[in-house]
């Protein structure tokens, strides 16, 4: 037993599959069945929605025919296009500014040895633990009390606040394993600390900065809770606009819009995976 416990700490062998016993066919069948059921539960609804978007009649599955007319209808909905553009701008700004703040914070925190270190890192991560609806409610209340009109800057700040922990965490995790000597080596060949940061540290941090940008973009792009409290009429974001359609026009063009969004998210996910490898390491 002692040996077995030691194994728990030992690194996994390369292929991780030292086959002692071949599982019985029943087990294999069970495994495939579980896998199929699980993904049916997880993904089938999205598939149904995509199918409905081709239905010429109504929001009904299975479709009673095939049409692309709902996709053409999208183009006649200026609200949707406007919302998509607003969401894109907002998410891009959030991603760039939030990630920049996060990178700065992670770098600053690494070099800061003061008494507030624990408190500051706790503060940076805390939006993760506080329900976003409370953050949004709080901001809504304070601007309401101060008599400030809802505007895009507050909306942007709120989006940054609720997504900030992700870049901070990603970059800090990479800095944790960062070999300080790479930066020192730059100093020994004559780089000032700022040059070392620009030429060595930041290029290497790309491995955590790029995923942070994408994750923050996606979180902001999809955010409903914060936007519903704080968005003004000019900044009705996609999720808000979709919800409005659901309430007043429950027709397959909403499914078509959704399909467009599903495809966009999927493409982004796979591009991101190609770029940085999201899943477990593959050899």
């Amino acid at each position: 037993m002692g040996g077995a416990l030691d194994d728990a700490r030992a690194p996994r062998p390369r292929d991780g599959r030292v086959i002692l016993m071949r599982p019985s066919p029943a087990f294999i069948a069970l495994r495939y069945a579980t896998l199929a059921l699980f993904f049916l539960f997880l993904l089938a609804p999205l598939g149904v929605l995509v199918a409905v978007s081709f239905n010429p009649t109504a929001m009904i599955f299975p479709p009673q025919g095939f049409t692309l007319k709902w996709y053409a209808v999208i183009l006649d909905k200026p609200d949707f296009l406007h919302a998509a553009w607003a969401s894109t701008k907002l998410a891009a700004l959030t991603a760039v500014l939030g990630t920049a703040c996060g990178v700065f914070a992670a770098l600053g925190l690494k070099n800061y040895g003061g008494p507030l270190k624990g408190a500051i890192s706790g503060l940076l991560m805390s939006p993760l633990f506080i329900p976003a609806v409370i953050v949004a409610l709080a901001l809504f209340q304070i601007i309401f009390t101060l008599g400030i009109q809802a505007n895009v800057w507050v909306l942007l700040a709120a989006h940054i606040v609720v997504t900030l922990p992700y870049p901070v965490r990603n970059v800090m995790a990479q800095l944790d394993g960062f070999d300080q000597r790479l930066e020192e080596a730059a100093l020994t060949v004559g780089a000032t600390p700022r040059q070392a940061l620009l030429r060595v540290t930041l290029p290497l941090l790309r491995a955590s900065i790029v995923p942070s940008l994408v994750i923050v973009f996606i979180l902001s792009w999809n955010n409903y809770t914060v936007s519903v409290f704080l968005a003004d009429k000019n900044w009705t974001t996609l999720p808000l606009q979709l919800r409005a359609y659901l309430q007043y026009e429950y027709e397959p063009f909403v499914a078509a819009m959704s399909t467009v969004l599903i495809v966009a998210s999927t493409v982004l996910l796979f591009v991101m995976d190609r770029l940085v490898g999201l899943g477990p390491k593959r050899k």
Partner: protein
Amino acid sequence: MIGRSKTLLLVPSVSILAAFFVVPLIWVVGLSFMSSDGTGKLVTDFTLGNYTRFLTDAYYLDALLWRTVRLAAIATLFSVVIGYFGALAIVRSAPSWQPWLILLVMLPLWVNLVVRTLSLMVVLGRTGPVNQFLVWTGIADRPIPLLFNETAVLIGMVQVAVPFVVMSIYGVLQSIPRQLEHAAMTVGATPLSAFRRVTLPLSMPGILAGSVLAFGINVESFVVPILLGGGRVRFMSVAAYETATVSNNLPFAATIGVILLVVTMAMLALYQWAVRSMTRARPVLATAG
């Protein structure tokens, strides 16, 4: 050595958080002890009235707080069970499949929540595939109302939480060497009892982390109860939103928010305590996690 200037790097993030997070939160807590007159004007005198109103009214306690916590807990239970089976099936499939399967698990997380909820509305609707299936198999003789009730909200929350649970549990399961189960089988355990005695206890940290994540997401559910509950299933976050924006009773909205916050914090504290007592009782788990 490189000096103090790097501390300045903390300024942007800390000031944004201070201005748009800390101060508003403090303001909300303060606000929850104030009241508003009939016209929505703020009365700044200190009062416990909001809390008394919330905690003595059966409507707020049962139909709001208890329903939120109860549904979030049930959804968490289902999410963890479904998520565990999913993670286990993925971790036991061919290594070359696993990255793709994990990517598929992540996919819903990247899709807009409104879109995902809409997909459930179609699936659970009167003419949706689930009802067609029920009628076709004869389980029900005519379509049953699956939407705009607690069940629908429950299904929605489980859908949302499962990918998070899978990610938490998959990471832990992957770090448990298969040889441990094989070792149990060499001393006479059947595959099932080897799983129960070795893998399951070793994956407890993942189950715990997944549960706390799922509960945290479920308890603050907003979009799901609005769309799938159809206004009939009231949730804390929805109530806070409506109280603030529709009824304009800011202090009472703040109170609802603060109570939701307290529930979340209590749950996090419980989780911390569980993790600590588990690592103390069985140090092996700490290294496996």
